[in-house]
Protein backbone atom coordinates (compact mmCIF):
# COMPACT_ATOMS: atom_id res chain seq x y z
CA UNK A 1 0.00 0.00 0.00
CA UNK A 2 1.39 3.29 -1.07
CA UNK A 3 -0.46 5.44 1.43
CA UNK A 4 1.40 6.38 4.56
CA UNK A 5 0.38 4.82 7.87
CA UNK A 6 -0.76 8.19 9.16
CA UNK A 7 -3.33 8.61 6.40
CA UNK A 8 -6.89 7.84 7.39
CA UNK A 9 -8.06 4.33 6.45
CA UNK A 10 -11.39 5.63 5.20
CA UNK A 11 -11.69 9.07 3.67
CA UNK A 12 -15.11 10.41 2.71
CA UNK A 13 -15.27 13.67 0.77
CA UNK A 14 -18.37 15.79 0.01
CA UNK A 15 -20.53 12.70 -0.23
CA UNK A 16 -24.17 13.05 -1.22
CA UNK A 17 -26.72 10.26 -1.01
CA UNK A 18 -30.50 10.21 -1.27
CA UNK A 19 -33.25 7.60 -1.23
CA UNK A 20 -35.52 9.02 -3.89
CA UNK A 21 -36.60 12.45 -2.62
CA UNK A 22 -35.29 11.83 0.91
CA UNK A 23 -31.79 13.28 1.27
CA UNK A 24 -29.71 11.17 3.65
CA UNK A 25 -26.30 12.78 3.19
CA UNK A 26 -25.87 16.30 2.01
CA UNK A 27 -22.15 16.57 1.43
CA UNK A 28 -20.29 15.08 4.38
CA UNK A 29 -16.54 14.83 4.98
CA UNK A 30 -15.42 12.11 7.33
CA UNK A 31 -12.09 10.45 8.16
CA UNK A 32 -11.59 7.18 9.93
CA UNK A 33 -8.16 7.00 11.49
CA UNK A 34 -6.14 3.78 11.45
CA UNK A 35 -5.95 1.75 14.63
CA UNK A 36 -8.48 3.89 16.48
CA UNK A 37 -12.08 3.48 17.53
CA UNK A 38 -14.24 6.02 15.73
CA UNK A 39 -17.81 6.49 16.89
CA UNK A 40 -20.48 7.84 14.59
CA UNK A 41 -23.36 9.23 16.60
CA UNK A 42 -26.67 10.62 15.57
CA UNK A 43 -30.40 10.41 16.19
CA UNK A 44 -32.25 7.38 14.79
CA UNK A 45 -33.12 7.76 11.15
CA UNK A 46 -30.10 9.83 10.18
CA UNK A 47 -28.80 7.05 7.96
CA UNK A 48 -25.94 5.79 10.08
CA UNK A 49 -26.40 2.23 8.87
CA UNK A 50 -26.58 3.60 5.34
CA UNK A 51 -23.11 5.06 5.86
CA UNK A 52 -21.70 1.61 6.63
CA UNK A 53 -23.31 0.13 3.53
CA UNK A 54 -21.91 2.99 1.48
CA UNK A 55 -18.41 2.38 2.83
CA UNK A 56 -18.84 -1.35 2.11
CA UNK A 57 -19.79 -0.56 -1.47
CA UNK A 58 -23.28 -2.10 -1.26
CA UNK A 59 -24.75 1.25 -2.19
CA UNK A 60 -23.31 4.00 -4.32
CA UNK A 61 -23.18 7.68 -3.33
CA UNK A 62 -24.88 10.12 -5.70
CA UNK A 63 -21.84 12.39 -5.59
CA UNK A 64 -18.52 12.60 -3.79
CA UNK A 65 -16.00 9.88 -3.00
CA UNK A 66 -15.39 7.20 -0.43
CA UNK A 67 -11.84 5.89 -0.28
CA UNK A 68 -10.70 2.86 1.63
CA UNK A 69 -6.92 2.76 2.08
CA UNK A 70 -6.54 5.14 -0.85
CA UNK A 71 -8.80 3.15 -3.18
CA UNK A 72 -12.05 4.68 -4.39
CA UNK A 73 -14.55 2.01 -3.34
CA UNK A 74 -17.14 2.85 -5.98
CA UNK A 75 -14.75 2.89 -8.92
CA UNK A 76 -14.12 -0.83 -8.50
CA UNK A 77 -15.71 -3.61 -10.51
CA UNK A 78 -17.24 -6.55 -8.66
CA UNK A 79 -14.13 -8.71 -8.32
CA UNK A 80 -11.76 -6.11 -6.82
CA UNK A 81 -14.64 -4.79 -4.70
CA UNK A 82 -15.07 -8.27 -3.24
CA UNK A 83 -11.32 -8.43 -2.60
CA UNK A 84 -11.54 -5.09 -0.81
CA UNK A 85 -14.46 -6.31 1.30
CA UNK A 86 -12.32 -9.14 2.64
CA UNK A 87 -10.36 -6.38 4.38
CA UNK A 88 -13.42 -4.97 6.14
CA UNK A 89 -15.91 -6.66 8.42
CA UNK A 90 -19.44 -5.42 8.97
CA UNK A 91 -21.28 -6.47 12.09
CA UNK A 92 -25.00 -6.27 11.42
CA UNK A 93 -27.34 -5.29 14.19
CA UNK A 94 -29.08 -8.65 13.93
CA UNK A 95 -25.81 -10.55 13.64
CA UNK A 96 -26.96 -11.87 10.25
CA UNK A 97 -25.75 -15.36 11.12
CA UNK A 98 -26.62 -18.10 8.65
CA UNK A 99 -29.42 -19.87 10.44
CA UNK A 100 -28.91 -23.25 8.76
CA UNK A 101 -25.32 -23.53 10.00
CA UNK A 102 -23.94 -24.10 13.50
CA UNK A 103 -21.97 -21.43 15.33
CA UNK A 104 -18.78 -23.25 14.34
CA UNK A 105 -19.75 -23.41 10.65
CA UNK A 106 -20.78 -19.76 10.69
CA UNK A 107 -17.33 -18.69 11.82
CA UNK A 108 -15.76 -21.17 9.39
CA UNK A 109 -17.89 -19.83 6.52
CA UNK A 110 -15.60 -17.00 5.30
CA UNK A 111 -12.55 -19.25 5.70
CA UNK A 112 -14.12 -22.03 3.65
CA UNK A 113 -15.27 -19.56 1.00
CA UNK A 114 -12.04 -17.64 0.62
CA UNK A 115 -9.18 -19.93 1.61
CA UNK A 116 -8.03 -23.42 0.73
CA UNK A 117 -6.90 -24.15 4.28
CA UNK A 118 -7.00 -27.80 5.35
CA UNK A 119 -9.81 -28.82 7.69
CA UNK A 120 -7.55 -29.08 10.75
CA UNK A 121 -6.34 -25.53 10.26
CA UNK A 122 -9.86 -24.18 9.81
CA UNK A 123 -10.84 -25.95 13.01
CA UNK A 124 -7.96 -24.37 14.93
CA UNK A 125 -8.68 -20.90 13.55
CA UNK A 126 -12.39 -21.12 14.28
CA UNK A 127 -11.79 -22.30 17.83
CA UNK A 128 -9.32 -19.47 18.38
CA UNK A 129 -11.80 -16.86 17.15
CA UNK A 130 -14.59 -18.36 19.24
CA UNK A 131 -12.32 -18.45 22.28
CA UNK A 132 -11.58 -14.75 21.75
CA UNK A 133 -15.29 -13.93 22.08
CA UNK A 134 -15.76 -16.48 24.87
CA UNK A 135 -18.05 -18.81 22.95
CA UNK A 136 -15.90 -21.84 22.21
CA UNK A 137 -18.36 -23.86 24.31
CA UNK A 138 -21.25 -22.86 22.03
CA UNK A 139 -19.56 -24.10 18.83
CA UNK A 140 -22.10 -26.87 18.22
CA UNK A 141 -25.22 -24.78 18.82
CA UNK A 142 -27.40 -23.30 16.11
CA UNK A 143 -28.10 -19.53 15.93
CA UNK A 144 -31.68 -20.17 17.09
CA UNK A 145 -30.35 -21.71 20.30
CA UNK A 146 -28.28 -18.74 21.47
CA UNK A 147 -29.25 -15.32 22.80
CA UNK A 148 -29.11 -12.10 20.81
CA UNK A 149 -26.00 -10.94 22.65
CA UNK A 150 -24.25 -14.23 21.96
CA UNK A 151 -25.27 -14.02 18.29
CA UNK A 152 -23.56 -10.67 18.04
CA UNK A 153 -20.40 -12.13 19.56
CA UNK A 154 -20.49 -15.02 17.09
CA UNK A 155 -20.92 -12.51 14.27
CA UNK A 156 -17.91 -10.68 15.68
CA UNK A 157 -15.87 -13.89 15.66
CA UNK A 158 -16.93 -14.44 12.05
CA UNK A 159 -16.06 -10.85 11.12
CA UNK A 160 -12.50 -11.26 12.46
CA UNK A 161 -12.02 -14.70 10.89
CA UNK A 162 -10.33 -13.29 7.80
CA UNK A 163 -8.32 -10.83 9.92
CA UNK A 164 -9.64 -7.63 8.34
CA UNK A 165 -8.11 -4.18 8.71
CA UNK A 166 -11.36 -2.63 9.84
CA UNK A 167 -14.57 -3.67 11.56
CA UNK A 168 -17.75 -1.67 11.34
CA UNK A 169 -20.28 -2.18 14.13
CA UNK A 170 -23.89 -1.34 13.40
CA UNK A 171 -25.66 -0.41 16.65
CA UNK A 172 -23.80 -3.07 18.65
CA UNK A 173 -25.37 -2.11 21.97
CA UNK A 174 -29.04 -1.95 21.04
CA UNK A 175 -31.20 -4.31 23.04
CA UNK A 176 -28.39 -5.67 25.20
CA UNK A 177 -28.65 -6.20 28.93
CA UNK A 178 -25.99 -4.41 31.03
CA UNK A 179 -23.85 -7.53 31.36
CA UNK A 180 -23.66 -8.43 27.70
CA UNK A 181 -23.24 -4.75 26.93
CA UNK A 182 -20.19 -4.66 29.22
CA UNK A 183 -18.87 -7.82 27.58
CA UNK A 184 -19.27 -6.32 24.10
CA UNK A 185 -17.61 -3.05 25.06
CA UNK A 186 -14.63 -4.87 26.50
CA UNK A 187 -14.47 -7.12 23.43
CA UNK A 188 -14.52 -4.24 20.98
CA UNK A 189 -11.82 -2.44 22.91
CA UNK A 190 -9.73 -5.59 23.39
CA UNK A 191 -9.92 -6.68 19.76
CA UNK A 192 -9.08 -3.22 18.55
CA UNK A 193 -5.83 -3.33 20.51
CA UNK A 194 -4.82 -6.96 20.15
CA UNK A 195 -5.54 -7.29 16.41
CA UNK A 196 -4.48 -3.74 15.58
CA UNK A 197 -7.90 -3.16 14.05
CA UNK A 198 -9.57 0.02 13.04
CA UNK A 199 -13.07 0.14 14.48
CA UNK A 200 -16.10 2.14 13.44
CA UNK A 201 -19.08 2.11 15.78
CA UNK A 202 -22.37 3.47 14.61
CA UNK A 203 -24.76 4.05 17.48
CA UNK A 204 -27.13 6.33 19.29
CA UNK A 205 -25.97 4.98 22.65
CA UNK A 206 -24.01 8.02 23.67
CA UNK A 207 -22.79 7.17 27.16
CA UNK A 208 -21.29 3.78 26.47
CA UNK A 209 -19.56 4.64 23.28
CA UNK A 210 -18.03 7.83 24.71
CA UNK A 211 -16.10 5.64 27.15
CA UNK A 212 -14.27 3.70 24.46
CA UNK A 213 -14.19 5.94 21.40
CA UNK A 214 -11.01 7.76 20.42
CA UNK A 215 -12.81 10.04 18.02
CA UNK A 216 -16.45 11.00 17.62
CA UNK A 217 -18.55 12.26 14.74
CA UNK A 218 -22.06 13.58 15.35
CA UNK A 219 -24.34 13.42 12.32
CA UNK A 220 -27.78 14.86 11.86
CA UNK A 221 -29.87 16.06 8.95
CA UNK A 222 -27.35 14.82 6.41
CA UNK A 223 -24.49 16.91 7.81
CA UNK A 224 -21.61 16.44 10.21
CA UNK A 225 -22.60 18.60 13.16
CA UNK A 226 -19.38 18.25 15.06
CA UNK A 227 -16.37 16.00 15.42
CA UNK A 228 -13.43 15.59 17.75
CA UNK A 229 -12.32 13.58 20.75
CA UNK A 230 -15.13 12.71 23.17
CA UNK A 231 -14.02 15.51 25.50
CA UNK A 232 -14.04 18.06 22.68
CA UNK A 233 -17.45 17.02 21.41
CA UNK A 234 -18.93 17.27 24.89
CA UNK A 235 -17.90 20.94 24.93
CA UNK A 236 -19.45 21.48 21.50
CA UNK A 237 -20.63 24.93 20.52
CA UNK A 238 -23.64 23.42 18.76
CA UNK A 239 -26.83 23.34 20.82
CA UNK A 240 -28.04 20.37 18.84
CA UNK A 241 -24.95 18.30 19.67
CA UNK A 242 -25.23 19.16 23.36
CA UNK A 243 -28.93 18.30 23.35
CA UNK A 244 -28.21 14.97 21.72
CA UNK A 245 -25.36 14.09 24.06
CA UNK A 246 -27.30 14.94 27.21
CA UNK A 247 -30.52 13.41 25.92
CA UNK A 248 -32.93 16.25 26.62
CA UNK A 249 -36.36 16.25 25.03
CA UNK A 250 -36.39 19.94 24.17
CA UNK A 251 -33.85 21.89 22.25
CA UNK A 252 -33.16 22.41 18.58
CA UNK A 253 -34.56 18.95 17.90
CA UNK A 254 -38.18 19.06 18.89
CA UNK A 255 -39.88 16.24 20.76
CA UNK A 256 -42.93 16.76 18.55
CA UNK A 257 -42.95 15.55 15.00
CA UNK A 258 -44.02 18.44 12.77
CA UNK A 259 -47.84 18.48 12.45
CA UNK A 260 -49.88 20.22 9.79
CA UNK A 261 -52.27 21.90 12.26
CA UNK A 262 -51.98 23.36 15.73
CA UNK A 263 -52.87 20.95 18.54
CA UNK A 264 -56.07 22.79 19.51
CA UNK A 265 -57.21 23.05 15.89
CA UNK A 266 -56.57 19.36 15.39
CA UNK A 267 -58.70 18.42 18.41
CA UNK A 268 -61.51 20.75 17.36
CA UNK A 269 -61.41 19.48 13.78
CA UNK A 270 -62.99 16.19 14.84
CA UNK A 271 -66.19 17.89 16.03
CA UNK A 272 -67.40 19.23 12.74
Amino acid at each position, binding site marked *: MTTAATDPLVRIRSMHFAFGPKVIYDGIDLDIVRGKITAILGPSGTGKTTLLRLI*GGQWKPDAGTIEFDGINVHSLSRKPLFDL*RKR*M*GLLFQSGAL*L*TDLTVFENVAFPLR*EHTAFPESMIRDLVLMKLEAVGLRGAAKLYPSEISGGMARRVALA*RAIALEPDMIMYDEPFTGQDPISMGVLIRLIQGLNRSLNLTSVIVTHDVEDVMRIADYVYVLSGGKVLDHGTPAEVQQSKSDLVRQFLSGEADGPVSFHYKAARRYADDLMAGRE
Partner: protein
Amino acid sequence: MNVLSPLFDSLRGLGRATLFLLTILAGIPAALLRPRLVFQQVYSVGVLSLIIIVVSGSFIGMVLALQGYRTLVNFGAASSLGVLVALSIVRELGPVVTALLFAGRAGSALAAEIGLMKATDQLSGMEMMAVDPIKRVIAPRFIAGIIAMPLLASIFAMMSIGVAGGHAVGVELLGVDAGSYWSQIHQAMHGADIRDMLIKATVFGLAISWIAVYQGYHAAPTSEGVSRATTSTVVVSSLAILALDFVLTAFMFH
Protein backbone atom coordinates in the same frame (compact mmCIF):
# COMPACT_ATOMS: atom_id res chain seq x y z
CA MET B 1 -52.09 5.24 -19.79
CA ASN B 2 -53.65 4.12 -16.51
CA VAL B 3 -55.47 1.28 -18.16
CA LEU B 4 -52.23 -0.05 -19.55
CA SER B 5 -50.14 0.38 -16.43
CA PRO B 6 -50.79 -3.12 -15.04
CA LEU B 7 -49.59 -4.44 -18.39
CA PHE B 8 -46.43 -2.35 -18.18
CA ASP B 9 -45.89 -3.49 -14.62
CA SER B 10 -46.09 -7.13 -15.53
CA LEU B 11 -43.83 -6.60 -18.54
CA ARG B 12 -41.33 -4.85 -16.30
CA GLY B 13 -41.53 -7.75 -13.85
CA LEU B 14 -40.94 -10.21 -16.67
CA GLY B 15 -37.93 -8.20 -17.80
CA ARG B 16 -36.48 -8.14 -14.29
CA ALA B 17 -37.05 -11.87 -13.92
CA THR B 18 -35.29 -12.51 -17.23
CA LEU B 19 -32.30 -10.43 -16.21
CA PHE B 20 -32.27 -12.30 -12.92
CA LEU B 21 -32.28 -15.61 -14.82
CA LEU B 22 -29.26 -14.45 -16.83
CA THR B 23 -27.43 -13.58 -13.59
CA ILE B 24 -28.21 -17.04 -12.24
CA LEU B 25 -27.03 -18.71 -15.45
CA ALA B 26 -23.76 -16.79 -15.14
CA GLY B 27 -23.43 -18.13 -11.58
CA ILE B 28 -24.05 -21.76 -12.53
CA PRO B 29 -20.47 -22.73 -13.49
CA ALA B 30 -19.23 -21.56 -10.08
CA ALA B 31 -21.98 -23.57 -8.36
CA LEU B 32 -21.19 -26.69 -10.40
CA LEU B 33 -17.60 -26.52 -9.20
CA ARG B 34 -18.94 -27.18 -5.72
CA PRO B 35 -21.23 -30.17 -6.25
CA ARG B 36 -21.66 -30.65 -2.51
CA LEU B 37 -23.75 -27.47 -2.33
CA VAL B 38 -25.96 -28.70 -5.17
CA PHE B 39 -26.39 -32.17 -3.64
CA GLN B 40 -27.45 -30.64 -0.33
CA GLN B 41 -30.17 -28.75 -2.18
CA VAL B 42 -31.22 -31.78 -4.23
CA TYR B 43 -31.70 -33.45 -0.88
CA SER B 44 -33.82 -30.65 0.55
CA VAL B 45 -36.01 -30.04 -2.52
CA GLY B 46 -35.99 -33.61 -3.84
CA VAL B 47 -35.63 -36.19 -1.11
CA LEU B 48 -37.78 -34.22 1.30
CA SER B 49 -40.56 -34.01 -1.33
CA LEU B 50 -40.50 -37.80 -1.81
CA ILE B 51 -43.25 -38.69 0.63
CA ILE B 52 -45.85 -36.36 -0.87
CA ILE B 53 -44.91 -37.51 -4.38
CA VAL B 54 -45.05 -41.22 -3.52
CA VAL B 55 -48.36 -40.96 -1.69
CA SER B 56 -50.04 -38.75 -4.31
CA GLY B 57 -48.71 -40.92 -7.14
CA SER B 58 -50.19 -44.02 -5.57
CA PHE B 59 -53.61 -42.50 -5.02
CA ILE B 60 -53.83 -40.98 -8.48
CA GLY B 61 -52.92 -44.33 -10.01
CA MET B 62 -55.57 -46.05 -7.90
CA VAL B 63 -58.29 -43.57 -8.82
CA LEU B 64 -57.42 -43.75 -12.50
CA ALA B 65 -57.64 -47.54 -12.38
CA LEU B 66 -61.07 -47.43 -10.70
CA GLN B 67 -62.52 -44.91 -13.11
CA GLY B 68 -60.88 -46.49 -16.16
CA TYR B 69 -62.08 -49.95 -15.26
CA ARG B 70 -65.73 -48.81 -15.02
CA THR B 71 -65.64 -47.50 -18.58
CA LEU B 72 -63.48 -50.18 -20.15
CA VAL B 73 -65.38 -53.12 -18.67
CA ASN B 74 -68.52 -52.08 -20.63
CA PHE B 75 -66.60 -52.65 -23.84
CA GLY B 76 -64.96 -55.80 -22.58
CA ALA B 77 -61.65 -54.02 -22.76
CA ALA B 78 -60.68 -54.22 -19.10
CA SER B 79 -57.39 -55.86 -20.07
CA SER B 80 -56.37 -52.51 -21.62
CA LEU B 81 -56.56 -50.86 -18.20
CA GLY B 82 -52.78 -50.74 -17.94
CA VAL B 83 -52.47 -48.73 -21.14
CA LEU B 84 -55.04 -46.21 -20.00
CA VAL B 85 -53.34 -45.68 -16.66
CA ALA B 86 -49.81 -45.69 -18.04
CA LEU B 87 -50.39 -43.29 -20.93
CA SER B 88 -52.46 -40.81 -18.90
CA ILE B 89 -49.79 -40.78 -16.25
CA VAL B 90 -46.71 -40.63 -18.43
CA ARG B 91 -48.07 -38.14 -20.95
CA GLU B 92 -49.94 -35.76 -18.68
CA LEU B 93 -50.70 -36.43 -15.05
CA GLY B 94 -47.22 -37.54 -14.01
CA PRO B 95 -45.26 -34.42 -14.91
CA VAL B 96 -48.12 -31.97 -14.28
CA VAL B 97 -49.25 -33.22 -10.88
CA THR B 98 -45.66 -33.73 -9.76
CA ALA B 99 -44.89 -30.16 -10.78
CA LEU B 100 -47.93 -28.76 -8.96
CA LEU B 101 -46.98 -30.67 -5.82
CA PHE B 102 -43.35 -29.66 -6.22
CA ALA B 103 -44.36 -25.99 -6.48
CA GLY B 104 -46.40 -26.31 -3.29
CA ARG B 105 -43.86 -28.30 -1.33
CA ALA B 106 -40.41 -27.22 -2.55
CA GLY B 107 -41.07 -23.98 -4.46
CA SER B 108 -42.82 -22.28 -1.57
CA ALA B 109 -40.15 -23.46 0.87
CA LEU B 110 -37.44 -22.14 -1.43
CA ALA B 111 -39.07 -18.72 -1.75
CA ALA B 112 -39.67 -18.47 1.99
CA GLU B 113 -36.13 -19.53 2.83
CA ILE B 114 -34.51 -17.05 0.47
CA GLY B 115 -36.95 -14.28 1.44
CA LEU B 116 -36.18 -14.80 5.13
CA MET B 117 -32.45 -14.89 4.46
CA LYS B 118 -32.90 -11.52 2.82
CA ALA B 119 -35.11 -10.14 5.59
CA THR B 120 -32.58 -11.17 8.27
CA ASP B 121 -29.64 -9.59 6.40
CA GLN B 122 -28.07 -12.99 5.70
CA LEU B 123 -27.75 -12.20 2.01
CA SER B 124 -26.22 -8.75 2.52
CA GLY B 125 -24.08 -10.27 5.25
CA MET B 126 -22.70 -12.67 2.67
CA GLU B 127 -22.08 -9.86 0.23
CA MET B 128 -20.16 -7.97 2.88
CA MET B 129 -18.09 -11.12 3.45
CA ALA B 130 -17.25 -10.93 -0.25
CA VAL B 131 -19.37 -14.00 -1.00
CA ASP B 132 -21.74 -13.70 -3.95
CA PRO B 133 -25.19 -14.90 -2.78
CA ILE B 134 -26.18 -15.66 -6.38
CA LYS B 135 -23.38 -18.20 -6.67
CA ARG B 136 -23.50 -19.48 -3.11
CA VAL B 137 -27.26 -19.55 -2.40
CA ILE B 138 -29.34 -19.03 -5.52
CA ALA B 139 -27.59 -21.01 -8.27
CA PRO B 140 -27.29 -24.30 -6.30
CA ARG B 141 -31.01 -24.18 -5.44
CA PHE B 142 -31.91 -23.39 -9.03
CA ILE B 143 -29.90 -26.33 -10.39
CA ALA B 144 -31.28 -28.64 -7.70
CA GLY B 145 -34.85 -27.91 -8.77
CA ILE B 146 -34.04 -28.79 -12.37
CA ILE B 147 -32.34 -32.02 -11.34
CA ALA B 148 -35.02 -33.05 -8.87
CA MET B 149 -38.15 -32.58 -11.01
CA PRO B 150 -37.56 -35.29 -13.68
CA LEU B 151 -36.51 -37.73 -10.96
CA LEU B 152 -39.61 -37.01 -8.90
CA ALA B 153 -41.87 -37.26 -11.96
CA SER B 154 -40.35 -40.68 -12.77
CA ILE B 155 -40.94 -41.86 -9.24
CA PHE B 156 -44.49 -40.52 -9.38
CA ALA B 157 -45.11 -42.46 -12.62
CA MET B 158 -43.66 -45.67 -11.22
CA MET B 159 -45.78 -45.42 -8.10
CA SER B 160 -49.01 -44.71 -9.94
CA ILE B 161 -48.67 -47.26 -12.75
CA GLY B 162 -47.09 -50.10 -10.81
CA VAL B 163 -46.28 -50.74 -7.19
CA ALA B 164 -49.20 -49.36 -5.17
CA GLY B 165 -51.29 -47.45 -7.74
CA GLY B 166 -52.97 -48.76 -10.88
CA HIS B 167 -51.51 -52.22 -10.49
CA ALA B 168 -52.77 -52.62 -6.92
CA VAL B 169 -56.32 -51.60 -7.78
CA GLY B 170 -56.55 -53.03 -11.31
CA VAL B 171 -54.81 -56.35 -10.83
CA GLU B 172 -55.10 -57.11 -7.12
CA LEU B 173 -58.52 -55.62 -6.42
CA LEU B 174 -60.50 -55.71 -9.68
CA GLY B 175 -58.91 -58.85 -11.05
CA VAL B 176 -57.46 -57.63 -14.35
CA ASP B 177 -54.91 -60.17 -15.59
CA ALA B 178 -51.40 -59.07 -14.58
CA GLY B 179 -49.94 -60.39 -17.82
CA SER B 180 -52.19 -58.33 -20.08
CA TYR B 181 -51.94 -55.27 -17.79
CA TRP B 182 -48.19 -55.17 -18.29
CA SER B 183 -47.85 -56.52 -21.83
CA GLN B 184 -50.33 -53.96 -23.20
CA ILE B 185 -48.38 -51.17 -21.49
CA HIS B 186 -45.25 -52.63 -23.02
CA GLN B 187 -46.77 -52.52 -26.52
CA ALA B 188 -48.50 -49.13 -26.35
CA MET B 189 -45.89 -47.06 -24.59
CA HIS B 190 -42.86 -45.89 -26.54
CA GLY B 191 -39.54 -44.40 -25.64
CA ALA B 192 -40.81 -41.10 -27.00
CA ASP B 193 -43.52 -40.99 -24.32
CA ILE B 194 -40.95 -41.33 -21.58
CA ARG B 195 -38.64 -38.84 -23.26
CA ASP B 196 -41.50 -36.33 -23.51
CA MET B 197 -42.37 -36.85 -19.86
CA LEU B 198 -38.78 -36.12 -18.86
CA ILE B 199 -38.69 -33.03 -21.08
CA LYS B 200 -41.90 -31.71 -19.55
CA ALA B 201 -40.69 -32.40 -16.02
CA THR B 202 -37.37 -30.65 -16.67
CA VAL B 203 -39.06 -27.58 -18.14
CA PHE B 204 -41.49 -27.43 -15.21
CA GLY B 205 -38.58 -27.82 -12.78
CA LEU B 206 -36.80 -24.91 -14.41
CA ALA B 207 -39.91 -22.73 -14.33
CA ILE B 208 -40.66 -23.49 -10.67
CA SER B 209 -37.08 -22.95 -9.48
CA TRP B 210 -36.81 -19.74 -11.46
CA ILE B 211 -40.09 -18.38 -10.09
CA ALA B 212 -39.28 -19.44 -6.52
CA VAL B 213 -35.78 -17.98 -6.33
CA TYR B 214 -36.91 -14.81 -8.10
CA GLN B 215 -39.84 -14.30 -5.72
CA GLY B 216 -37.67 -15.03 -2.68
CA TYR B 217 -34.77 -12.85 -3.76
CA HIS B 218 -37.02 -9.92 -4.62
CA ALA B 219 -39.34 -10.23 -1.63
CA ALA B 220 -39.86 -7.15 0.51
CA PRO B 221 -37.75 -7.77 3.64
CA THR B 222 -40.76 -7.98 5.97
CA SER B 223 -42.95 -10.82 7.21
CA GLU B 224 -45.67 -9.65 4.84
CA GLY B 225 -43.23 -9.58 1.95
CA VAL B 226 -42.07 -13.13 2.61
CA SER B 227 -45.63 -14.40 2.85
CA ARG B 228 -46.51 -12.67 -0.40
CA ALA B 229 -43.46 -14.19 -2.10
CA THR B 230 -44.47 -17.67 -0.96
CA THR B 231 -48.03 -17.26 -2.16
CA SER B 232 -47.09 -15.85 -5.53
CA THR B 233 -44.55 -18.62 -6.03
CA VAL B 234 -47.29 -21.23 -5.76
CA VAL B 235 -49.86 -19.25 -7.78
CA VAL B 236 -47.53 -18.16 -10.58
CA SER B 237 -45.83 -21.56 -10.79
CA SER B 238 -49.15 -23.40 -11.00
CA LEU B 239 -50.37 -21.18 -13.82
CA ALA B 240 -47.02 -21.41 -15.59
CA ILE B 241 -47.04 -25.21 -15.33
CA LEU B 242 -50.51 -25.54 -16.84
CA ALA B 243 -49.79 -23.05 -19.63
CA LEU B 244 -46.41 -24.60 -20.42
CA ASP B 245 -48.00 -28.04 -20.40
CA PHE B 246 -50.38 -26.99 -23.15
CA VAL B 247 -47.58 -25.50 -25.23
CA LEU B 248 -45.33 -28.54 -24.79
CA THR B 249 -48.15 -30.98 -25.51
CA ALA B 250 -49.02 -29.06 -28.67
CA PHE B 251 -45.44 -29.41 -29.87
CA MET B 252 -45.24 -33.10 -28.94
CA PHE B 253 -48.61 -33.95 -30.51
CA HIS B 254 -48.33 -35.90 -33.77
